[in-house]
Structure formats: structure tokens, C-alpha cells
């Protein structure tokens, strides 16, 4: 597997893992019990901070998908199904004759007009 793919997969994993951990921690912190006022204050702020980082991680996941799409669009080479038709001499000859006919059409009519 390519280094880039591994990096992206790892990034997805860590992001998801962090989202889950932080979400879980929000619930843990939500318990009041007999904590001191200071601790409670800090905890409620931590909850908010965790929520913000969950949002940020989700946004990061979105940017990973964007990255993937971009890589797919720009990095892939299209293989055309059309086979080389021009290689056949017969076909080539046909076009050649058609082209000559076109040239004739242009040139021929002059003779009638001008002479």
C-alpha cells in the first residue's frame, strides 16, 4: 500500500477514536458529585472544549474525503476503450480518399466557372 494511503487511513482511525473518547469524556465530566467549585468550573469548560474539538475532528474527516476525491480525480489515468482504428490501412485509405474527394470538390468547380 502506498505511504499516502496508510497516512490517510491512520488519520481516519485516530480521528474517529478521538471523537469517541472525547464524547465519552463529556459524559464522565457531566457528573457533579461532591467536587469542589473550582473543579466543577474547570470541568464544565473542559466539556465545552471537548465538544469543540469533536466538531473540529468531524470537519477534518470531511476534508479527508475531499482529499480522497481530489486524489482520485487528478491522480487517476483514464484508459479509453476505443481501440486505435487508424491503424488499419483500409480505414486510413478510406479517409484518404474522402479527403482527396473533398479537395477535388473545392478545386474542381473552379474549372467550370473560370475557363
Amino acid at each position: 500500500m502506498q505511504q499516502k494511503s496508510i497516512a490517510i487511513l491512520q488519520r481516519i482511525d485516530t480521528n474517529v477514536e478521538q471523537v469517541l473518547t472525547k464524547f465519552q469524556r463529556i459524559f464522565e465530566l457531566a457528573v457533579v458529585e461532591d467536587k469542589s467549585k473550582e473543579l466543577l468550573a474547570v470541568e464544565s469548560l473542559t466539556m465545552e472544549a471537548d465538544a469543540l474539538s469533536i466538531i473540529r475532528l468531524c470537519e477534518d474527516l470531511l476534508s479527508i474525503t475531499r482529499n480522497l476525491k481530489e486524489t482520485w480525480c487528478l491522480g487517476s489515468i483514464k484508459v479509453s476503450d476505443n481501440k486505435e482504428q487508424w491503424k488499419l490501412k483500409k480505414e486510413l485509405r478510406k479517409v484518404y480518399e474522402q479527403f482527396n474527394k473533398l479537395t477535388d470538390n473545392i478545386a474542381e468547380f473552379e474549372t467550370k466557372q473560370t475557363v
Partner: protein
Amino acid sequence: MNKIRLSLDLEIYGDDTRDAFLLDEDKLTIEELIPRILLERKLFIDVTEESLLDEIKAAAEASSQMSDGIPIVVPGDSLVCNSDIVGGDNIDIGGSNGSTATKIDTFNKNRADLAKNVALALNETSLSLDFVSLLIASVKQNIGKSTMSPHLLKNIPLGSLSSDKLTKEEGASGNDGNKDGNTSKVGQGWKYEAVIKITKLFKEASVKLKQQVEKEEHYWKMINVVLADDEVLFKHGKTIGVKFGYGDAGSIYHDKGLAILRSDETTGHVTFTPVASLLNFRVANKTYKYIQVKILNKIDEEFMVTGISSFKKTFNSSRFQVVNDLEKARYFLFEEDLFYFLTREAKTLINYNVSIISNKIIFEIKDEIIEIEAVPFDEYYNNMDDIDLYQNINSYSSMHNEKCESILNYLKTMLCCFYKYNLSLKQKMPTLFTKWKQQNSHPLILRPLLGNIRHEIYITVIKKMLDELLLEFKDQLLEATLKLDKLTNLKTFTGNIFQRSIQKPVSEIVMTLKNKQEKWMKIHTELTTNEIFVPYVINLTIVKYSSESDLNQDFEGTNCLQLTVNSFEDVKESLQWSILDFVG
């Protein structure tokens, strides 16, 4: 603030009351005295005999007043004190005539205290000034710097002290019983607030993310549409661009046909924006022009339009606007490319009745005019069904429409031929020669077009001339044949479909004559052209044979004439002379 000058005359207190730290001025050595005088008087210039006498007199008066119990005010003396401090009750100088030891002691003590306090105040003031300066320095560096002491300035970095306002927590001093209950209640409130805030944040973020996902989806769908249309995408900075030009197909036109796919901020809708240069994203603002071919003929001594090529492109084959826009840009880029090379080529043909007037290339061929024009594309106008402005005026006006189309197709095909040639150069090993070729190649479009038309005319002219010659000598000849072989250069197919137009046309007319002496003569007239394609070049070869079998086998022939001429008259003369000689 009032300043009061005090003078202390120590002599009146006697020697034993002397402060150990105060120096007896009368006992000072000259080395000590001079600096002291300097300190007091600053300069010796101001010290004159009279002034000193005055001073002494004044001092004597003052001492006599002191003894009367009146506080003294002596101008010009050294001790300067703040009136706030001195004005207090704590200094009781000469409150009474009785100069007791305790009073003097108190005075001395107070005086020492005063000196100490003054020093302390000074110290404190400068300390607080430093503090304030340092505090200010974090906000206004220059102001702080100018008032800070050098020591502080040297040792403490500016702005290292800051301040904030602390509000005293209300109700902090509750009794312990209530405290726990309050704390948990307050804590619950906080957590509740936090949870509500988190919910709000999540809701907002989810709406935002959903919108973003939709936008992204739309954007990539559109990109995919473009990609599915076999377009070449590239990344430039954060945007995705599309290369719709013919550069990779072999075009050397300066406009490479680059565009960026701009996405709408809110919807993610992709719009196609051609750019002139990738460096600064300058949007190319071009008027689309298409090429129109017109034929005019001389009818009743006046040139009239007898044919016009049509333009029926609508650019709405796809249901996606971006693809249609792209197709349109590509189509007109090709037209622009073609017209650019047409005008360049036309310049070289000015000697052959080709002229360029603004957006028109005009060919004059006898009674016919071919006009190639770049016409601005007007969407509205072109969408109208009937654009027969020129057509159907009379029966002549559309008789060459088909030919105009053919010419247009021919021009386009020839540009493709040039692309193909460039591409083949690109695929070759890059050497100086191929590079030179790349830089010096020009498309063959108008030259073969005009050349082929001319060639047909020349063939007719020369055929007619030879026919006339035969007619002239008909009676003196036993046998005469004339065989026209058009475009002999095309007899072998080289594999290049454009052979007809990239090779010089060559046609041959072979005349065989038999005179009354039963001798044979073969006149081989080869009509061709030079690299400009337009002028004619005639290679004339005349060979004599003694018998028919020799003629057929091309055996033992005598070359009579072999020359290249550029004029029909010369051909005629040469032939006339040769035949005359042959029959005579």
C-alpha cells in the same frame, strides 16, 4: 506648592549639641571646602565680595531675628523642603527661647526622621513610577520606556508585567453548612449550562457540516461530470482547473485553453471560467468568433454572394451548463487558432491576389472571390431559426453554399493535419533539428487550398494549349495522341491521409507524335508547382525515337529538349518550334 527656605545656624546651639554627622564648616580643609562651595554656589563667578558681605550681613540679621523667636526665611540658602512636611507641627524650631537639650534632641530626631522620610518617599515614588512604567510598557512601549529607570530598563524586558481586573466573588463567605449545598447547586448549573451550550454547538455544527457535505457532493458531482467527459483536470492551488485547449493535441497557438472550475461559496455549483494565465487567474474575456466562408461570383458585371457557410452550433448537448460552456470555449478556441494561422499564411500569399482586410481574408481567382471571415458569435442571433440574410435573394445566392462548407471543412482538416505533424515531432527524440522544426513549422492550409484550385486551372490551360497545337499540325502528322494524367504524385499512397495537400501536385500530359518519316516524338509535360503551391512550374521533356517499339520500350531515344519553364508562352513557343522541326 509653596517652597519655604530654611536656614539652620548651628552655631547658636553650641558645640556639644552638634550632630556627629554634620561637619563643622569652619574646620573644613580647603580640599573639602572648594567642592562644597561648588555644590552650594555652582559657580565661583557669582561669588563676589559684595554679595558675600551682603550675605554675612543678612545672616547676622537673621541670627538676631532668630533670637527674637521669629521663624526665618532666608532667600538663597540651600535647604529646600516640601512645605507639606515642613509645615507640620513636628518641627518646632525655636518655639521658645529656652534651648534645652531635649528640645534640640527632638528637633534633631525629627530632622533625621524628616530626611529619612524624604528619602523613603523619593525611593517609593521612583519605585512606583518604575512599576507604573513597566505596567504601561506592556501597552504603550515608548511611554513606558521613557519613564523607566535605567536599572529596570536594563534588567527587565519591556512588557513583562501585565494586569487584569479581579472581581471579588460574591457570597464567598458563607457558612460551611450551606457551602456544600450551594457548590453542588452551582456546579449543576454550570454543567447544565455547558451541556446546553454543547448541544447548541453540535446542532449548529451538524447543520453547517450537512450543508458543507451537500456542497461538496454537488461540487464533486460536477467535477466528475467534467471528468467523465474525458477532460484533463489539473490542480492549481486550491482550485481544480481544466485544460480544454489543443496544446496536447499538437497546437502551438499561444492560448493553451486553460480554465478553472470555480465553485460557488454556498451551493458548490461549478462554473467554468477560462483564464488567460494561471499566474494571476486573469479571467479571459474573449469575444467568441467563428469562421465563415463566402463565395462571390461576378454576375452581370457585379460581384454577388453565391454561397455562404452556415453556423448552426448551439452548445446545449449536455444538460450540464459547465460541459456546454467548456464545449463552446473549446470550439471557439479552435476557430481562433485556425484564423490566427490563416492570417499568418495569407500574409505570405499577398503576391497571389490574396488580401487581408480587418477580419477578412480575401482570395481573388479570376471572376470569383472567396472570403474567409471571423464573425463574432452572437448567441441570440445564432439561436434564431432563420438566418438567411444573404440567402434566397435569388437563385444564385445559394448555389455555392455546399462548396463553402467544403472549404471550411478543408481548412479545419488542414489545421488538424498540422496538429498531427507537431505531435509527431513531439514524439521524436528531441534534437536540435526537431526543435528547429518545431519552431519553424507553419501550417499548410491556404497554400494547398489555393494551389489545388490553381492546379486545376493550369491543367485546363495547358490541355487547351496542347490541343490547339495538335490541331495546328494535324495535317503534317500521321498520328498524334494526347494523354492527361492528373495528380501522378498520388499514385502511391504513403500512408498519410493528407498526402494530397502536403505534397506538391504533379500532373502529366504525354503527347506522342508520328511524322511522315515514321519517326516518333514523345512530349512529356509535367505541371507542378514550387513550395508556395500557387505558381506553376512546367518541366518539359522531348524525346525522339526512330521506331514505335523503341518508343514503347523507351529505347535509344534522343533527348531534344529538357527544360523547366515558368510561363505558358515559353512552353508554347518551345513546343511549336520542336514540332515544326520534327515535321519539317
